[in-house]
């Protein structure tokens, strides 16, 4: 296990790489979901107040 974590002396390069990738990928999931949710909220509001009533 220790051997795995130390990465043969390359731990300071390997683990930050993994962390960077995971962080950026996770952020993208978050952003995409937020963007869809806000579009849905906005559309709901528009239809609630607008000319057209939701069916």
């Amino acid at each position, binding site marked *: 296990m220790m051997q795995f974590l130390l990465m*043969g002396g390359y731990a300071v*390069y*390997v683990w930050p*790489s993994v962390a960077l990738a995971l962080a950026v*990928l996770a952020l993208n999931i978050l952003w995409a*979901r937020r963007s869809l949710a806000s579009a*849905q909220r906005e*559309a709901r509001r528009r239809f609630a107040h607008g000319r057209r009533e939701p*069916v």
Partner: protein
Amino acid sequence: MAWVWFHRFGSPPYFYRVAGRLTPWFAWPALVLCLAGLVWGLGFTPPEWHQGDGFRILYIHVPAAWLSVQVYVVMALAAAVGLIWRMKVAHAVAASCATLGASFTVITLGTGMLWGKPMWGTFWAWDPRLTSELLLLFLYLGYIGLRSGFDDTARADRASAVLAIVGVVDVPIVNYSVVWWNSLHQGPSIIRAGGPAIAVPMLIPLLLMIVGFYCYFAAVLLVRVRGEILRRERNAQWIAEELAAPGAGVGSGGGSGAIAGTFQGASVPNSPAGHARI
């Protein structure tokens, strides 16, 4: 037949619904493949002869690098289709690619620097491969910046599409930089004449990661495109019907745990509102 397919996907309500249903089919494989590839690649492949365990950065760097370039191609193609056929959905796809592409490029450059330091002795060099990849990042950022400069979506679509299409010249430069010029960066080792130059035990987890990254891209892209479609359609009646349908919400897929909840938009039941609109 291809044209029927093309027109169907050009219809925002159709695309919106199908995208919602397809999302988990990409999200779950993405999670499983990336997890398997990462654990296998980091923990169970033998260390490389020259680079020891340092080579393991490959399992992130290579998939991210492939996607960084290929997402750009998808973006430019979608932008071209949107420009030529005035297709809203295509513009929505192009606009949704930018953040994802920029993210893959950031991962590529970041992991590349972290790999370059121990192997080349430097984080950065003005090498053809590195420089053209950096230019790719600027193209994505320029595209995003240009779009945000317009209030009118239709004008933003047209202007940014032109930028995306012109920027495509950078794609072959990134691709062939290691062949055309004498580069610090190694040449292609997977897709090359004579087969991959990577030993099979190292190659399998890499392929898992690459396919996993593709699935991840597809899943996140679909979620983004749905948001873009909603914003573009404004007053279309189908949206009212869609949103009124029971269970239509971002995370409401029946409490289906981490990732399904994470990626999935609504699993939308069939609703009778299929007015095709392009």
